[in-house]
C-alpha cells in the first residue's frame, strides 16, 4: 500500500509544481488574466505563499508590503478594465535603490534606514502606469557596493539553490525572489555586474541595458556614468516585454537616450542563422572554474547547431578591466555619496559599512590633488581604449560570449571577508565603462547543483539582438525553467 501512496503524493507534488501560476511566462500570464482563467489576486497570493515559506531563510526583502494591502490592490485591478499592457496585474519586486513614494527606500544602508521618498523613480512610475503591482523592495549590497548581497545592513541574501551560499550582488534580493517565485519579475540595477552576477548564480535571466536606454531618475546613484536600470525575469522574452515598458527618453534624466525604442517583442522573431558569436580567449583561461567553462562551451555548441558561427577572438585589454572600472567607479561614488550628510534626510556618515567606506576613500584618494592624473585621469584614458577594444571586437562578431563569474555562487562570508576577492568577482562584468548591453542567461548546473549563467554582449543599443539570441537559446534548452522549490 505504501508505494501506491507515495506515488500519489509524488504525482500530486508534480502536479502542484506544474500548476503553479508563477511558472508561466509573462505572455501566458497576460492572456490567462485576460481570459479570466485566473486572477491577479491568485498571482499575488501565490507570491506571498512562497514568501511566507522561503523568505525567513532567503532574506529577500528590506521592505515587504503588507499582504492584505497588496491583495486589495490586486482585487481592484481584477475588477477594472485593464490598461493595454502585458504587465497589467502582474506582481513585481524592485531593488531598494529606487525611490518609491511613501515606501521606505534604504539602498540597504543604515544611512537611509528611515528615509521615505517624496517622489517616484521614473522606472517605478512606468510600471505602476502599466498596472503592475509592487510586492516589496529587495535587499542588495548597500549602494550597489558588492557582488554578493552581503554588504547590507539588513542581513545577507541567501541563495535559493544552496542556503549556505550567497545570491550574488548587488541585485541579489531580486534574483533570489524570482528564483523562489516570489514575484513574476524584478527591476535591478547594473553598474559592474549587479544584474548579471546574481542572475547567473540564481538561475534567472537578466539584462544589463545600454547606458541611457532606461531613465535613471530616482535611482540612488552608485556610479552615475555606468549605472543602468534593467529587467530581471525568468526568460529573455519576459525581459523584452519589461524593457518595452521601461525604455525611452525621460526629460528628468538628461543622460537618457533619444534613440528610438524598437518593438522588442517582434524583434525576437526571424532567424539567428548566419550570425557570429565571438569568444575572447582571455575569458577562458586559468582562474575560471572548469565546470563553468564546459557549460559555456556547450551553450556555444548549441548556438552552432542553430547555425551561428562561433569564433575565437582576442581582447588583451580585458586584463585592465577591473582597475579601470574600480578607479572610475570609486571616484564617482565618493562624489555621489558626499550628499549623505544626515542634514536633509537620513542618518550621518558614521553609518556607512566598511566596504562602502573603503570605496569612498579609494575614490577620494584617486581624485585628490597629486593623484588625479595617475589614477582618475589614467582610468578615463583606459576607458577610451576599452571602448575601442570592444568596437574592434564587434567588427569580428555580432555578439561576444563570456562567463559571468569565474566561480559559482560563493559561500557566505567568502567575498565580504576579502575586499580584493570581492573586487575581482567583477572581472567579466566590469565593461560597464563602455556602456554596452549584456544579457545573462542560465546554461546549466555544476555537479553540486549550483546554477551557471553565460553573458552575451553586443554593441550599443543591440538589445534586440541579444534578446533574440537569448530567446532562441531558451527555445531549445530548459535550464531557465528549473527551480529549487
Amino acid at each position, binding site marked *: 500500500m505504501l508505494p501506491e501512496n507515495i506515488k500519489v503524493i509524488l504525482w500530486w507534488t508534480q502536479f502542484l509544481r506544474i500548476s503553479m501560476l508563477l511558472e508561466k511566462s509573462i505572455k501566458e500570464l497576460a492572456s490567462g488574466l485576460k481570459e479570466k482563467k485566473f486572477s491577479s489576486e491568485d498571482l499575488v497570493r501565490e507570491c506571498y505563499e512562497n514568501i511566507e515559506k522561503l523568505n525567513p531563510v532567503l532574506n529577500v526583502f528590506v521592505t515587504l508590503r503588507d499582504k492584505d494591502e497588496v491583495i486589495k490592490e490586486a482585487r481592484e485591478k481584477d475588477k477594472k478594465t485593464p490598461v493595454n499592457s502585458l504587465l497589467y496585474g502582474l506582481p513585481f519586486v524592485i531593488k531598494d535603490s529606487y525611490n518609491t513614494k511613501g515606501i521606505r527606500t534604504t539602498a540597504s544602508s543604515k544611512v537611509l534606514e*528611515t*528615509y*521615505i521618498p*517624496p*517622489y517616484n523613480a521614473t522606472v517605478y512610475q512606468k510600471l505602476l502606469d502599466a498596472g503592475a503591482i509592487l510586492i516589496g523592495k529587495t535587499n542588495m549590497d548597500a549602494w550597489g557596493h558588492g557582488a554578493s548581497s552581503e554588504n547590507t545592513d539588513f542581513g545577507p541574501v541567501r541563495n535559493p539553490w544552496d542556503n549556505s551560499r550567497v545570491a550574488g550582488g548587488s541585485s541579489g534580493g531580486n534574483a533570489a525572489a524570482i528564483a523562489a517565485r516570489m514575484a513574476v519579475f524584478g527591476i535591478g540595477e547594473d553598474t559592474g555586474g549587479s544584474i548579471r552576477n546574481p542572475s547567473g548564480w540564481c538561475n534567472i535571466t537578466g539584462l544589463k541595458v545600454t*547606458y*541611457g536606454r532606461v531613465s535613471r531618475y530616482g535611482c540612488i546613484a552608485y556610479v552615475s*556614468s555606468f549605472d543602468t536600470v534593467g529587467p530581471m525575469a525568468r526568460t529573455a522574452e519576459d525581459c523584452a516585454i519589461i524593457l518595452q515598458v521601461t525604455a525611452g527618453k525621460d*526629460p528628468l534624466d*538628461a*543622460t537618457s*537616450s*533619444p534613440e528610438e525604442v524598437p518593438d522588442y517583442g517582434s524583434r525576437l522573431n526571424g532567424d539567428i542563422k548566419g550570425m557570429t558569436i565571438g569568444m575572447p580567449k582571455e575569458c577562458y583561461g586559468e582562474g575560471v572554474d572548469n565546470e563553468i567553462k564546459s557549460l559555456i562551451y556547450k551553450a556555444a555548441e548549441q548556438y552552432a547547431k542553430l547555425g551561428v558561427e562561433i569564433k575565437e577572438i582576442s581582447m588583451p585589454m580585458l*586584463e*585592465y578591466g*577591473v*582597475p*579601470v572600472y*574600480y*578607479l572610475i567607479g570609486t571616484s564617482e561614488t*565618493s562624489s555621489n555619496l*558626499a550628499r549623505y*550628510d*544626515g*542634514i*536633509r*534626510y*537620513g*542618518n550621518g*556618515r*558614521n553609518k*556607512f559599512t*566598511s566596504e562602502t*567606506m*573603503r570605496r*569612498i*576613500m*579609494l575614490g*577620494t*584618494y584617486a581624485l*585628490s590633488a597629486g593623484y588625479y592624473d*595617475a*589614477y582618475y*585621469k*589614467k*582610468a*578615463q*584614458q*583606459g*576607458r*577610451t*581604449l576599452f*571602448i575601442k577594444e570592444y568596437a574592434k571586437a564587434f567588427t569580428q562578431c555580432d555578439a561576444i560570449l563570456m562567463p559571468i563569474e569565474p566561480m559559482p555562487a560563493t559561500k557566505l562570508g567568502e567575498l565580504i571577508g576579502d*575586499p*580584493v576577492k570581492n*573586487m575581482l568577482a567583477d572581472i567579466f562584468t566590469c565593461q560597464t*565603462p*563602455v*556602456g554596452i548591453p549584456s544579457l545573462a542567461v542560465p546554461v546549466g548546473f555544476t555537479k553540486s547543483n549550483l546554477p551557471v549563467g553565460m553573458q552575451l554582449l553586443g554593441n*550599443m543599443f543591440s538589445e534586440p539582438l541579444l534578446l533574440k539570441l537569448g530567446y532562441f537559446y531558451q527555445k531549445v534548452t530548459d535550464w531557465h525553467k528549473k527551480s529549487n522549490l
Partner: protein
Amino acid sequence: MPKGKNILTTDIVKHVATLAKLDLSAGELKSFQDQLSSILHLVEQVSKVETTNVEPTSQVTGMENVMREDEAGVSLPQDEVLRNAPRKHKGYFVVDAIFED
C-alpha cells in the same frame, strides 16, 4: 604585494578620511591602511596601459549640453521636503554652526 609594505602611510589615510568626512577609529585606520594598500597595488596596473595622446572619456552617451526650456515646473511642497529631516526649525533645515568667533 610584499607583506608589511603599505603603499599608503597612516597620514595619507587620515587625510583622505578627513576629505571624505569619515571618522575612523584607530583600528579602522590600521585596517583601511592595509586593505586600501592592497587594492591600490592591484589598480595600479592601470599605469602599464599606454595612454599617450589618448583622450579621456567621462561619459558614453555621445550627447552634450542637453537643455530644456527655462520654465518653472511643479515642485514638492515645503512640508514634504522637510519631512525626512532629523532637525528642522520653522520651515528650515537645522545645521551645525560652521563659523566660530
